[in-house]
């Protein structure tokens, strides 16, 4: 409990830090926010600029603006998007779901298949399967994700039209919830695959290493000495321990997954936060950008918290402070 509380508090502090840093970074960078807003409206005169400044509070000292912003954030208000002229929270709320869906699917795919491949490879570290896994994992990792995405699009959406090219739901979609889920799943295949491939490689490699390590451990020898079946030795005694480093990495991967999602969403026009982030950057939509950064950090923090919790469930040796006894 102490741990959870501590992590929560710390997560909160981190979030505040993220907000402050980004706020200052963005506000102190060259560029006039009012001009941006005016530009979005199609060009404007000096008086309109002045009106915009006072309306958005841009005429106040920067620290006052920061204070106001922080107070608003505490109330759950991330401001209005300059571009969309809508509450940032509403915009993000509509986009965060697709991103989580994409990221989790890719992550599950990568972990599931990756670990399976890694375990198989670890059984015979010198065998051909192991070599194949090693090669595949390097290959999957080395290809730029957006490039893989483009290649997959050409292959599976244009030349061999099995999957939709873009989007999350068909524009014409009209059906019940089940069809909806199917439609989304159909759209999800290529993006999740693209994103999953890089991480698949990493998990395969990691779990291979972890399994080789664990299979040489004394307690695995003990299990064998008890007469435990080989399958059970591998999947119960060994994997249960090899999962620990995998979990650690899975938690740390979340930030990278979101980074990858940014590119994948761009390639497949997946309507997630990544695209929103990209657009907010290109439009200098500062409130929206801050909101996206805030939520990305929040997602990573929550993911880390969950990983830590599951780690704790998986490893009884962790003490209150999160250290290995």
């Amino acid at each position, binding site marked *: 409990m102490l741990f959870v509380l501590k992590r929560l508090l710390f997560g909160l502090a981190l979030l505040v830090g993220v907000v402050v840093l980004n706020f200052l970074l963005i506000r102190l960078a060259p560029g006039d926010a009012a001009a941006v807003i005016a530009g979005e409206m199609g060009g404007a005169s000096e008086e309109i600029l002045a009106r915009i400044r006072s309306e958005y509070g841009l005429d106040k000292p920067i620290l006052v603006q920061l204070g106001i912003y922080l107070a608003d954030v505490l109330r759950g208000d991330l401001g209005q998007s300059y571009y969309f002229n809508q509450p940032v929270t509403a915009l993000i709320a509509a986009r965060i779901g697709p991103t989580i869906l994409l990221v989790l699917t890719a992550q599950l795919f990568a972990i599931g298949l990756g670990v399976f491949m890694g375990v198989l490879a670890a059984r015979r570290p010198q065998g051909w399967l192991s070599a194949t896994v090693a090669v595949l994992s390097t290959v999957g990792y080395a290809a730029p994700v957006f490039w893989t995405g483009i290649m997959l699009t050409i292959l599976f959406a244009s030349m061999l039209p099995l999957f939709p090219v873009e989007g999350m739901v068909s524009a014409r979609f009209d059906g019940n919830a089940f069809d909806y889920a199917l439609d989304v799943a159909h759209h999800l295949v290529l993006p999740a695959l693209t994103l999953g491939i890089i991480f698949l490689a990493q998990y395969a490699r990691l779990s291979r290493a972890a399994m080789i390590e664990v299979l040489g451990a004394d307690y695995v020898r003990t299990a064998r000495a008890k007469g435990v079946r080989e399958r059970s030795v591998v999947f119960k005694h060994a994997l249960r321990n090899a999962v620990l480093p995998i979990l650690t990495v899975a938690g740390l991967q979340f930030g990278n997954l979101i980074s990858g999602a940014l590119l994948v969403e761009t390639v497949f*026009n997946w309507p997630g936060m990544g695209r929103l982030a990209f657009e907010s950057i290109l439009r200098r939509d500062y409130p929206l950008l801050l909101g996206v950064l805030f939520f990305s950090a929040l997602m990573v923090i929550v993911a880390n918290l969950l990983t830590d919790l599951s780690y704790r469930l998986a490893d009884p040796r962790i003490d209150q402070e999160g250290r290995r006894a």
Partner: protein
Amino acid sequence: SAPADAEEITPGGSVVITSTQAPRHLNPAVQSGIATAVPGTQIFASLLKYDDNWQPQPYLAESWETSDDGLSVTVRLVEGATFHDGEPVTSEDVRFSIETVRDNHPFETMFAPVSAVETPDERTAVIRLSQPHPALLLAMSSALLPIIPEHVYGDGQDIQSHPANSAPIGSGPFRLADFEPGRQITLERYDDFFIDGRPYLDRIVIRIVPDPSAMVLALEAGEADILPFLTSSQNIRRLQENEKFAVTDKGYEGIGALNWLAFNTGEPPLDDVRVRQAIAYAVDRDFIVNALHRGVSKAQRGPIIESSPFFNPGIPAYDVDLDKARALLDEAGHPEGADGTRFSLTVDYIPGSGEQQKNIAEYLRSQLPKVGIGIEVRASPDFPTWAQRVSTYDFDLTLDSVFNWGDPVIGVHRTYLSSNIREGVIWSNTQQYANQTVDDILARAALEQDPEKRKALYDEFQMIVAEELPLYPINVIPYHTAYDTRLGNMPDSIWGVIQSMDELYWKEAP
């Protein structure tokens, strides 16, 4: 196209239109740009429509009449028009709309001369002008003057950030069903539309697909039906070869989207007209149009789009002539340096504009060194950065794209009037071009009621700026629309898809 006979039309069905740009909101009264205009013109009706021959047609206004002195226009509204919330459309709404647009829309010239709008009765509005304003009728069409309900937008909230901008109430053929910012806009048939039996379609979905290639694949896969505003030569050519789709460049005359190379005439060496002309002679417009754009775009020589009745075909074209360019540069006092370079310039471009601008900038980088001008391409990470640079004159050369918006008064004057040199405002006279004669001619043209005389004034204006060259026109943005050939009554007026699509229908179900 001839309107199809009502009997053969089976109403119903939905159409998916894609757009690469996400609209901020859906109220064209306070937002320019095509992203807002496409859904905006379906949701809001304007007073007039325009046909493909630049002629005004009745829409919300069943009739209109300009006084002989040109100082007032009387508009009579159709009977029974209602907003999507059921309230009737009245002359008060017209007054409110005109005032709102006049006071808030970035195109200030559209309604600046309007001094008052009188509303003698529910269906009559009299627009009083402080001076004659021949562009007024055009400004009353399409997205330029959406009639917005006063009872919604006149509640005292700031119109720029009014919540109803994202949940608009209009009197157009379609009403908003769902607005997912940056993703999709879903419009539904408005059953009480003031034209009986219209619209034919049940639903229009505007889907935002930022990647044009993905858009094309979506059309091919049947996931979309209409791709307006296509500019990529690759996509246009690919779809032209596919007989399931029609590809047309009709419907963009009203917008008049020009692509040009702007000079910062406020600073040396570009303050020297000879240098500007030298650059014009060094650039091969035909190569750009035929090779870079692979024939899909049309060359543009002057400030007014060549398809406009006001265009003057007699202006100099600056066909490529490198020797002449070199001679002009020598003459201007810029001899070649040891490395063959006379001086170096930067070139900016609107980010995200790919083939139309970035590629041309890169072409310049390859081409201008041939006459001794070094070029550095300056990328702007985002639009505001570019706008900031250009509007504060922190540039040498920039590619720019500015729309005519139908009448020169709206879209052309702003670029050349010395009174419009306004620092910090993009798409003002950012070239800092100042010529008293031009200012006078344009002022007279804005008031001139007689079309013949007006054209003569514009002819003179075009000759002067083609000579002095504050900017070098390159081409018309090759907007094309690709659509499923089973669609009937594809909009083909000068406004194309930014005018009501109430007549659009499926000839056979998709």
